[in-house]
């Protein structure tokens, strides 16, 4: 298979473009996704503040590329309604933190249509949202809201960590018939990698084995993957083999891959960018404790930020965000538990 080297930003932009070219029913809406509407600079003066939607307006027109007012409830609600009415909308939330002002349309509406209406409807809406800390964007523009949405039945939750995964998962989202929460980490947009050319789909619910090693399992996703890779490589130099799993999707979640790995390593560290209470890390720890208890040689450890909002100052945000050193320390602590190794 031929590949092209590109950034996650480019992978997302080119996938949206390719899918819109393939399927007329795909529309895209959000704030400043065109940018410059109603200004002297004219449409496309900005081309999307994240650089993922530039050029679409000129190519597909105002009927399919809709610059909206700052109205997140209406953006997500319109996506829900358009999906019921036969389209495949992509709604962009400029920051995932803005689920706060659109949550009803996500949670009570699009997540529930299919079940509540007796399985007779489909709601193929993709809500792209930009998340994550590390850019000093402070408390309301840095959160990892995926745990909240993962807790809601009816939504699928996707977090690509590589350019290839961004293409494969976004394509899958746009071909499916369920509402998908597509999380794009703002600090990962510039990450480069090889992306398969042509048709490329990745099924949801299949974790990516990032590193293989028999001593300990690290489960993570999204923005934390890169820190875990760094930790795993440092540990490898000390002869510690890490089984590193990138979940790719937290709903559905590849429970089998987690349990298989823990059954072979007997040790688990979960690394999660969302706060610790009722989090993905807590959920995975509980699943492993219930389903792989007899395999465990040490208690599962969670590496998460503290249970606080995201701080602004560089020093504070660095202290807040889990680092590769935190991951490494958790691994060593788990391995040292009760002299188990």
């Amino acid at each position, binding site marked *: 298979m031929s590949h092209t080297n590109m950034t996650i930003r480019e992978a997302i932009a080119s996938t949206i473009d390719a899918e819109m070219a393939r399927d007329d029913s795909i*529309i895209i*809406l959000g704030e400043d996704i065109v940018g410059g509407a109603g200004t002297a600079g004219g449409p496309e003066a900005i081309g999307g503040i994240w650089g993922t939607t530039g050029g679409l307006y000129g190519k597909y027109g105002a*009927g*399919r590329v*809709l610059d*909206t*007012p700052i*109205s997140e*409830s*209406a*953006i*997500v*609600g*319109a*996506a*829900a*309604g*358009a*999906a*019921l*009415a*036969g*389209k495949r*909308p992509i709604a962009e939330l400029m920051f995932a933190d803005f689920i706060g002002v659109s949550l*009803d*349309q996500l949670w*009570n*509406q699009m997540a529930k*249509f*299919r*079940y*509540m*209406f*007796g*399985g*007779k*409807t*489909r709601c*193929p809406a993709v809500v792209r949202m930009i998340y994550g800390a590390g850019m000093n964007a402070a408390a309301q523009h840095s959160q990892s809201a995926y745990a909240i949405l993962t807790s809601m*039945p*009816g939504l*699928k939750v996707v977090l690509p960590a590589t350019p290839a995964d961004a293409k494969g998962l976004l394509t899958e989202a746009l071909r*499916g*018939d*369920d509402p998908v929460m597509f999380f794009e980490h703002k600090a990962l947009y510039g990450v480069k990698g090889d992306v398969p050319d042509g048709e490329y789909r990745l099924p949801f619910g299949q974790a990516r084995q990032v590193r293989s090693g028999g001593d300990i399992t690290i489960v993570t996703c999204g923005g934390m993957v890169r820190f875990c890779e760094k930790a795993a490589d440092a540990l490898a130099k000390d002869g510690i083999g890490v089984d590193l799993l990138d979940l790719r999707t937290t709903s*559905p979640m590849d429970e089998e891959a987690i349990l298989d790995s823990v059954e072979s390593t007997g040790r688990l560290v979960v690394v999660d960018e969302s706060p610790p209470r009722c989090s993905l890390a807590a959920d995975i720890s509980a699943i492993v404790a219930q389903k792989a208890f007899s395999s465990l040689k040490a208690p599962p450890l969670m590496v998460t930020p503290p249970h606080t909002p995201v701080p602004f100052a560089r020093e504070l945000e660095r202290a807040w965000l889990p680092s590769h050193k935190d991951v490494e320390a958790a691994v060593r602590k788990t391995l040292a538990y009760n002299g188990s190794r």
Partner: protein
Amino acid sequence: MQLSRDEMLGAYRRMKTIRAFEERLHDEIMTGEIAGFTHLYAGQEAAAVGVCDHLTNEDFIVSTHRGHGHCIAKGCDVEAMMLEIYGRRDGLCKGRGGSMHIADLSVGMLGANGIVGAGAPQAVGAAISAKLDGKGRVAIAFSGDGACNQGTTFEAMNMAVVLKVPAIFVFENNHYSEHTGFDYAVGTSKDIASRAEAFGMKAWRANGSDFFDTHDTMRELLDYVRAGNGPAAIELDTERFYGHFEGDPQRYRGEGELDRIRETRDCLKAFRARVSEAGLLDPADLDAIDAEVLALIDKAVANARVAAPPDPASVADDVYASY
């Protein structure tokens, strides 16, 4: 514009069906056989039918928690609705939705909604879809005087104007948002339509207790919207004959208020009087419709009472289209 005899008989049948459906539910709920919360639409029939009689299955509506009337007016199957309200396996939504979540996309009914104000943005989305398809379809958001105070409704009205889509905001003003009076809760001098005008769209006002006034006004409005002029709104002044929900003691009503509105603001009585006095329809034909409708509702209730419940083993089905 004068309606044909068949159009008038059809409109009367739909209004009578809604009334009989709701009155029967009012009685049946007292037996304890129907679970959950039910919000009856009786009194507002001319609004739902006056609006929906202009629509085809290709047009979209989104409804409210008080949605039975909109469902019937848009063409949802009455017996399947009754099964749904009884929580039966063969209900319109397999017993998963209940009274507040009836939907039938095959007739363009995108769903009743338990969240006040949630439907308006969805109608904008359906209108985006309709505009893109270019077939002159419209999407209607039914809202009450309660939903007119929700931010979602404001966002939806503004976005509809900005995107110039064929969304229609129908505000049924029944003067009560739950148990709170319209005079208290709506800040724009007893005028909801002016809010739509403030967002930059044309708005109409009609007597929602008069089928003919509602229907005539909606024709004008729909001609305007289907011609590609963007969104529009209408405020329909109407009355709610029952409480906010069944079981509501309605202590907020004035002395003799319910008797008065049933006497002076009953859209079915007004319809009968109008067509009889003008010699448009024979009262015997209306009586025949009454009998047929009551028989249909009897049958729907009798069936629903003994119909099979959903299989508990199906509780986790249909959360996703694919797993």
